[in-house]
């Protein structure tokens, strides 16, 4: 295993508010990692910094040893928390777009998933329901054979059936050598899929542990531990 993501004293401030306070974090390849924490704990900020969509106030973040750049973009598949696809595009045009720009895009995998969901290839994204848009965006993200998947709240705001579908899609479509970082606060739903978890609280890493270790050493599920740690 090698390091795919590394943060050193990573700090991000929005004005006077500190979103991340000098965190150190290392993620290895081939792991499914849950980035867990309550709202406002810095999960999205950390993912955006990894994508280069934000710049650190201090410290550094590296993907495969490099600062976020167009080179790392080629290896990172990012699912934002909002719909980023141009609404005028059809599903087929969105696939063309991914195919044009990402060398690792697997068109056949995307077509297959669209077919299983009975999604119209000629329907414009604007006319799709919110849930369908989210599914399409996830399908496109997971149809890349990327080295690092950064999934920001992929199951937030969708019904339980869709949640199951999304998790199944993630688990069946990522390659074993790649790393998946899933940010969520719906722990019970993702727990079974995770190899390790990172607990974030007020911009600090409270815990970075393997799921097996939590179960064996603490005798608790991740969900139970989370409720205990973040009890109000």
């Amino acid at each position: 295993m090698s390091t795919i993501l590394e943060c050193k004293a990573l700090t991000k401030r929005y004005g006077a508010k500190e979103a991340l306070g000098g965190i150190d974090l290392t993620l290895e390849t081939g792991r499914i990692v849950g980035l867990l924490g309550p709202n406002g704990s810095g999960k999205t900020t950390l993912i955006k910094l990894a994508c280069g969509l934000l710049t650190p106030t201090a410290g550094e973040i590296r993907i495969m040893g490099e600062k976020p750049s167009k080179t790392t973009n080629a290896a990172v598949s990012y699912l934002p928390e909002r719909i980023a696809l141009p609404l005028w595009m059809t599903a087929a045009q969105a696939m063309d777009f991914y195919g044009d720009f990402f060398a690792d895009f697997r068109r056949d995998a995307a077509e297959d998933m669209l077919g299983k969901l009975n999604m119209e290839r000629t329907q414009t994204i604007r006319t799709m329901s919110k849930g369908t848009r989210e599914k399409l965006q996830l399908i496109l993200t997971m149809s890349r054979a990327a080295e690092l998947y950064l999934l920001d709240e992929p199951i937030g705001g969708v019904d339980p059936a869709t949640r199951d579908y999304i998790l199944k899609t993630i688990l069946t479509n990522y390659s074993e050598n790649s790393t998946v970082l899933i940010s969520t606060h719906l722990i019970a739903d993702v727990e079974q899929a995770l190899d390790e978890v990172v607990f974030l609280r007020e911009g600090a890493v409270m815990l970075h542990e393997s799921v097996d270790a939590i179960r064996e050493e603490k005798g608790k599920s991740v969900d139970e531990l989370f409720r205990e740690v973040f009890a109000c």
Partner: protein
Amino acid sequence: MLGKLMKHEFRATGRIALPLCGIMMALSIVAGMVIRFWEGLDGGRRVSGWQGMTGSIIIILYGMSIFAVAIGIFVVLMQHFKRNLLGDEGYLMRMLPASVHELLLSKLFVALLWYLAAGVLIALSVLFVALLSGMVATDELAKLWDMVRRALSGTDAGFWIAWCLGSIGGTALCTLLFYADFALSQTFRKHKVLYNIAGVVIFIVLLRLLFAFNGFLDLRVFGTPHGVGIIGSADGPTEIFVTRDYFVELLELYAFNIGLYFLTWAVLKFRPNLE
């Protein structure tokens, strides 16, 4: 990568710009035929009420379509820039394996090509109206072309290079000014629209100061007409000029353009602010 980005940029902007151009060209043909119909009526006969109203509406619509193409394409391009790089679509665009330079240049080049296409199509539509309506006969057009050809006969490569550089630089300035303004205003967390408007005002004041300085130079230092142009008659050009101060203005124009470009680039690169 630049080619792919330009292809998608054309696709995204063309879905509105192309229909606008198509409507304008269609209306120019109809407007030309309406005018010809009016002209073809007997001298003593008046155009009937409905004929006059329909014809007038078509001609007014044609006039509005020119406006829509000229202004509409600019608005479409600016809105697309804002949504595509600074709005929600930015989460996808900024994750492409493309540098900020490639993203910016693809938009700038496509914008310049759209302005050129719009200019050519507007000129063509006016020509269609003139020819179809019979206002300009084909032989008169040939004479006009001959006059233009003779007027341009004395021009050299330097003249055309200077003219092209001035046209491209001027058009790019308008585009880059708004790019920089959008990029800067999005770095603020609140009142972005207010900063947007303030930014445009500040940039325009800076430009006016630059022009005022140039006017001072023309009057006090060079004492000559400035710019690039042709003074001529039907017999041919009497004077073709590219003045020395025009090159000074070109340098200033391109310095301003480069400044605006790198300002936009720096904001997108170091203060992406997709928060």
